[in-house]
């Protein structure tokens, strides 16, 4: 059973990492668009006010100010809800940040339907698609607060545009301080012989919860955490596609353009594999409690278990 106290929002990991960066890297600047208490960038703001910029509710301006700062050697982390930074400021990200290949870090909190009651307007389920299609961009989707912490620190060291997706809800911690984490290199979380499940993001907590349920049905999956959507870990994909011949991808994102889509694009040309994508299919999210929504969208541990079983035995 999960202990309620173990649930930590992934954005806390981001907030802590910014504090660390504030201490070790004087070039790091944090920007927010009036949502700093919600994204956790306020922790940095309190400690390093001279390196924090609140632009007000103006995401387009924020992204291009970050671009200008990066041109002068700063490492800006432009932060707000994913739906606003990727959608409202897409042209700024495309034409200024990516086309000029600038060292701007874009951070979108409140990814996926697990945002909950705020509803479809605030649940970004298209951000991965929008960001990963852009040349020069790196896209990282950590699974818990510990991984978000490590990802943030590594992104500060990585030159070039990057998008980091965070989530709102407190979720189970499924990695530990000792786990290795490297942008671009997938984590193999458990090895089994029946099927391979690839996930990205905090939905990993549901996937990990589904594993013992699958064991009860005598199904032993290999579970891969594909925290970096771009560049995707091609070696791991080839290896496991060839080994299993069946792949399931799981994500809190639209089926179009997300993790599953990225996996399919690569495998279709290099190791065609039978796939199922557990994702959100061509619709917006809606209001509701996160657990209710995940279940309704077929992404709760129980639903994942049922769907895996169905795919394995029925195809």
């Amino acid at each position, binding site marked *: 059973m999960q202990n309620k106290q173990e649930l930590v929002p992934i954005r806390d990991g981001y907030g802590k990492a910014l504090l660390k960066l504030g201490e070790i890297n004087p070039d790091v600047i944090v920007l927010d668009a009036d949502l700093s208490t919600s994204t956790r960038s306020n922790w940095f703001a309190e400690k390093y006010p001279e390196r924090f910029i609140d632009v007000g509710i*103006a995401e*387009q301006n924020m992204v291009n*100010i970050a671009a200008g*700062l990066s*041109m002068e050697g700063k490492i800006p982390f432009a932060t707000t809800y994913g739906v606003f930074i990727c959608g409202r400021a897409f042209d700024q990200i495309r*034409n200024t940040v990516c086309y000029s290949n600038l060292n701007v870090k874009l951070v979108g909190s409140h990814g996926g339907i697990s945002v909950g009651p705020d509803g479809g307007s605030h649940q970004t389920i298209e951000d991965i698609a929008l960001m990963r299609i852009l040349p020069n961009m790196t896209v990282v989707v950590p699974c818990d607060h510990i991984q978000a912490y490590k990802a943030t620190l590594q992104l500060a060291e990585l030159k070039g545009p990057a998008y980091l997706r965070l989530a709102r809800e407190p979720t189970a911690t499924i990695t530990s301080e000792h786990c290795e984490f490297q942008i671009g290199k997938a984590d193999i979380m458990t090895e089994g012989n029946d099927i391979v499940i690839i996930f990205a993001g905090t939905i990993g907590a549901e996937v990990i919860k589904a594993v013992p349920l699958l064991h009860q049905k005598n199904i032993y999956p290999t579970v891969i955490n594909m925290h970096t959507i771009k560049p995707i870990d091609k070696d791991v994909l080839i290896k496991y596609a060839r080994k299993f011949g069946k792949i399931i991808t799981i994500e809190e994102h639209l089926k179009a353009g997300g993790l599953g889509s990225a996996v399919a694009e690569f495998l279709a040309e290099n190791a065609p594999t039978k796939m199922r994508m557990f994702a959100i299919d061509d619709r917006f999210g809606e209001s509701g409690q996160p657990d209710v929504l995940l279940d309704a969208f077929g992404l709760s541990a129980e639903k994942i278990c049922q769907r895996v079983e169905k795919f394995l035995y029925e195809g």
Partner: protein
Amino acid sequence: MERSEIITKLQKKAISIRYEIIKMIGKAGSGHPGGSLSSADIGVALFFYQMRYQADNPKWEKRDRFILSKGHAAPLLYALLAQANFFDKKHLSTFRQYKSILQGHPASYLTPGVEVSTGSLGQGLSIAVGIALAGKMDKKSYNVYTLHGDGELDEGQIWESAMFASHKKLDNLCAIIDRNHLQIDGVTEVVMALEPLVQKWQAFGWHTIAIDGHNIGQIISAFDEFLTIKDKPTVIIAKTVKGKGVSFMENKAKWHGKAPKGELLKKALKELSTKKD
């Protein structure tokens, strides 16, 4: 050098820059002559009077920064950069061609002296704000200049950045508006009225200077004035004529993004070379 001498020299340079603009667009068979010509005098005053830079060291830390927010005036920027020796003039004849270092709109990864890629309107002022802010944080002495079309002011982002720049007291930032009164679909005041423009910028907390954008004396005085302003950003609203210097292009919206061909190209070049001599 005497002020009158400086002015005469810059006037001459402006004519050769206009000549290069038309030659470049004529050779390419496409491009944007109207707004390149209207801001040619401003561009010349920026590059050959106002800004500090080292052409053989485009990333020189102390350089003044220039952002061409109206990226479609790329021919003007390229003519200026070539004239200032950022790259060989021979590249101008490759403008808009495959593999050229001179793309249709400025691309910083290809062209020495281009600070950042532009072309989607309304973004340059925010970028300049970021650069100006970094300058303030690090106590650097450089200034940041931007050039905007007046039609570009329709973009909401311009006003986001205008608010921000005065809020942060960025007196190292100077925006220049090429106020030629025309945008692609016609007269600005018909398509989307901008007036009273000076008052708008004042209301946003900027120091405003309204000038004739073809009068070199007024342009350089405005730049001199900018250097004396403290605690607020400056905007120079330069009244200009779209297509300035080529008789059949002047005040015609249709020459916003069209290349002169055949006899018209010859006529335009002849008009400009007559003025050159």
